[in-house]
């Protein structure tokens, strides 16, 4: 793996890498030319399907398969929504792609739209990315000016318009149906499924929602072929595991010497990521734990750092999944409750408020943790956090979208993996009250404003 050449990040770092001439000099827009020169949409879908490309947005759903859910022979319009609302804490791989190589993204969108017969693509970008927004917009302008976007591209009957839509800073807009609602100008309350967006999505029309990084893989699959793509990553291990193929952008942040976004074949381990790319845990300290792919995926202990970060790996140690492959490393000085408090505060802040279990569960857990941090914890609270964690999310079926799962996994993992530390912390910080049984007594211990 040492000789792995970056693919998605190949142009990053070059001068003016975000301009059309630079992209074209480096082989840009070959794939779309090839596709328009004689491939049919079905060919493209088949190619992507056989490449085993899985969505990079977090859920890891096979991209080609997702496209086949669109109704056949639909009179249109079909819409493509590009999810660039990259809001998962510590995740920034989409930003790098959009800022430094926007044309690669656009070419991916063109290929995706060609395959799905979408003629309009909405790129939903979070408002906190002004540079990415500007560079994407100027890249789109360049494409229109040179006839790469618009009506009858390259003289074929393929037409495509791309619109940028800026979000308003809400995590929930990254959920695909929340994104669609927000795009339609409504409150981003995720929709109940069915119908799935492929059947009824944006403006009640069939809609594909794909992540930026997923789409950025498409030109390379078309250019270099399925075999090349499948030679990278970790092959399927069984019928229930579609395999993890292709290059992946890993973000590493937190307590490492060189935080950043690095490209590697899928299946890199956390330890490799930290040692080879991140420059090791900072200040010569020992690592304690990490999140595998955005905080919503749960928690990995230092002992679990040799698990490969592919779509199947984190699940083996009780995490929710690979997520966005954004690893946040925490060294030995971080307390488990520090981590949990900030995580739960985030989800309580970002819960959309639609489903009762998530709305109340996230805010309750935040307040329990604030009380523990204020030195008023009870041993009972650990079990309470675990109960809340087990009660919310689409895994038990109690919420509409997966945000609550993201809120639940850190709690569940922390209780499973760090119960001793949690108990010790509570006993130490609340030597007189840790054994209190009754919530009413706990109320008398502390009065929290909220």
């Amino acid at each position, binding site marked *: 793996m040492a000789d792995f050449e970056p693919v998605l990040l190949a142009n990053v770092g070059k001068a003016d890498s975000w301009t059309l001439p630079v992209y074209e000099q480096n082989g840009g827009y070959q794939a779309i030319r090839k596709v328009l020169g004689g491939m049919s949409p079905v060919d493209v879908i088949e190619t992507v399907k056989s490449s085993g490309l899985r969505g990079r947005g977090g859920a890891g759903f096979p991209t080609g398969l997702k496209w086949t859910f669109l109704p056949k022979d639909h009179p249109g319009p079909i819409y493509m929504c590009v999810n660039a609302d990259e809001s998962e804490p510590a995740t920034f791989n989409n930003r790098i792609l959009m800022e430094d190589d926007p044309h690669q993204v656009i070419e991916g969108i063109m290929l995706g739209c060609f395959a799905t017969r979408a003629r309009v693509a909405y790129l939903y970008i979070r408002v906190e990315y002004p540079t990415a927004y500007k560079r994407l917009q100027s890249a789109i302008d360049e494409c229109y000016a040179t006839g790469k976007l618009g009506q009858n591209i390259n003289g074929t009957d393929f037409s495509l318009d791309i619109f940028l839509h800026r979000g308003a800073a809400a995590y929930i807009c990254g959920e695909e149906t929340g994104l669609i609602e927000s795009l339609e100008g409504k409150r981003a309350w995720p929709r109940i499924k069915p119908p799935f967006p492929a059947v009824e999505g944006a403006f009640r029309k069939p809609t594909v929602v794909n992540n930026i990084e997923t789409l950025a893989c498409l030109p390379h699959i078309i250019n270099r072929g399925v075999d090349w793509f499948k030679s990278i990553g970790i092959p399927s291990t069984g019928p229930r595991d579609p395999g993890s193929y292709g290059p992946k952008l890993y973000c590493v942040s937190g307590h490492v010497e060189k935080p950043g976004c690095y490209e590697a074949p899928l299946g890199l381990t956390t330890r490799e990521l930290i040692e080879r790319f991140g420059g090791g845990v900072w200040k010569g300290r020992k690592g304690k734990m990490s999140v595998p792919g955005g905080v919503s995926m749960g928690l990995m202990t230092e002992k679990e750092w040799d698990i490969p970060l592919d779509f199947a790996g984190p699940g083996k140690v009780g995490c929710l999944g690979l997520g966005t492959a954004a690893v946040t490393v925490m060294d030995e000085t971080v307390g488990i409750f520090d981590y949990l408090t900030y995580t739960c505060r985030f989800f309580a802040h970002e819960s959309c*408020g639609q489903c009762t279990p998530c*709305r109340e569960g996230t805010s309750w857990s935040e307040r329990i943790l604030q009380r523990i941090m204020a030195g008023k914890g009870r041993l009972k609270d650990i079990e*309470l956090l675990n109960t809340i964690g087990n*009660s919310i999310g689409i895994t038990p079926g109690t919420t509409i979208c997966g945000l609550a799962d993201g809120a639940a996994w850190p709690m569940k993992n922390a209780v499973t993996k760090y119960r001793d530390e949690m108990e010790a912390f509570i006993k130490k910080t609340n030597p007189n009250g840790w054994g209190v049984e009754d*919530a009413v007594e706990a109320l008398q211990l502390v009065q929290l404003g909220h």
Partner: protein
Amino acid sequence: MAVITVDGKDIEIGDSERLNVIQAADRGGVAIPFYCWHPGLSVVASCRMCLVEVGQKNKDTGEVAMQPRLVPACQTPAKDGTVVVTESAKVKANQNFVQEGLLLDHPIDCPICDQAGECWLQDYYFNYGHQKRRADVKPFTSRRKDLGEHVTLFVDRCVMCSRCVRFTREVSGEGELQVIQRGAHAEIDIFPNHPINNTLSGNVNDLCPVGALCSKDFLYNQRVWFMEPHNSVCTGCSTGCSTQLHVSENKLHRIQPRYNPNANDWWMCDIGRFENGHVHAEERIDGVKRKKADGSGWDDVLWNDALPEVEKLLKDAVTQHGGKQVAFVLSPFLTVEEAYLLGTYAKQVSPDAPLFLGKVPVVEADETFKAGFTIRKERAPNRVGVEAVIKHFQAGEVPGWDAFKLAVESGSLRVAYVTGNAPAVWNTDSEASVLEKLHKLVVHDMLPSPIARKAHYIVPGVSSAEKDGCYVNHNGLLQATEWGVRPTLGAHVDGQTFSEYLGRKGMYHAASVIREVAQKLPFFARAVDGVPEAGLNLITGSEIRPTTTELGTVTHPLPTFRSVGSPLLEVERV
């Protein structure tokens, strides 16, 4: 027949029926709790109270494949072979957690909450909640916001079911309400300076399953458990909404819509709901009045003396002027029975006595809302019914109020018996001045009015809240109303008075009279076996849709309660 299995019990549903699991289970007597679902609104499945385990039975092998996750019953269609489990530990744990979550920040101010006693949160917590509060949150804040003329919001009691928001978007179509903020801070609000003042606004108070949205009209008026419901029909317009009068101690406290798919679905307008001040008005006519000979005022007449006096007046007039000059005006606010009795009496006084249809107040146009609910321009409940009665007694066109006025003006009428029975804006001095030409005038009404002031005799009548009877709406739907309030002191129920004119013995009994009407008048033939709750279609002849099968009540969804969850509650109840 499609068969679905709920908790091991097979329930049959019609093949063409599109029911969800809540509705289908209800058919079999299994109550699935819910907040956000409402049969008249879109499905959002966000309260998560109705989560159940669902599977599909294989027709051939009989094997059941259960879905691994809980699913919302409101969003799951009941299809042949659907298997539903509502009593498993998983389902109970979720109900438990949802209840616990909803009470986290709830002020629990039941003692001062209007909704207490009909609050779903209270009832569900009793049945599905924990025994003990685990929450360590300091609960009490109680903010109140005014949202409109009739609507006030107690912010912290809200469970965010979003029914009210959906109502304003989907049914009234005005969209005044919205959700602001996010997560646990989310709350219902209006857009700045755009209060919810549409004519359907009162419905959001009914829709609210908890004490968050309260009717300002009813606020702190009466505890709900002291009130008795009485099925009634709104007399505000010819839509004829099915309603319920909530009465305690002979006082009408509030009016709520009663589900009737043939008339009003789940809704009613604010006009019918709030404009009922006349029922307990101070100035109600409290006895029969005879104008003094010099016209300077009124003498009270005892009921026993009054009726013979009025009768003598009418009969003398017939002798003196001939039957053609003695008119009876049948108000469209009379019930079918009353119109029939008065018509019968008129023809008894003289077969020639002409019958007129009373004034039918009409505004400019119908007001139709997004989901089809309509406030009709014809602001009277029973024009169709009274017309049918008049047609029975006299052939040809039914002459109306204007024809009556013309006849009075031209001098072809000398004496008239005019029924009113409604607070009316049209009843003005100029309208009344024509009647001065009459030799004698008897007015049968409940409130003093310009027309009543022209009368030689005023016979007190009662409001629709005080009487039994039937109305026929614009579409020919015959509905029965029942009295909720006793007649104000000194007034008699109109039907009773008319019975006495006819010399009938005993108490007036509307249900017997409508049967008599059904036997004599073909138009009303369908009512021969009485009038069911949903009414009868007299004109279209189409089948009545029942009121009971669709969980239609707005006030409370659950006819039956189970005791689940808490061992404390598992006490045998008598």
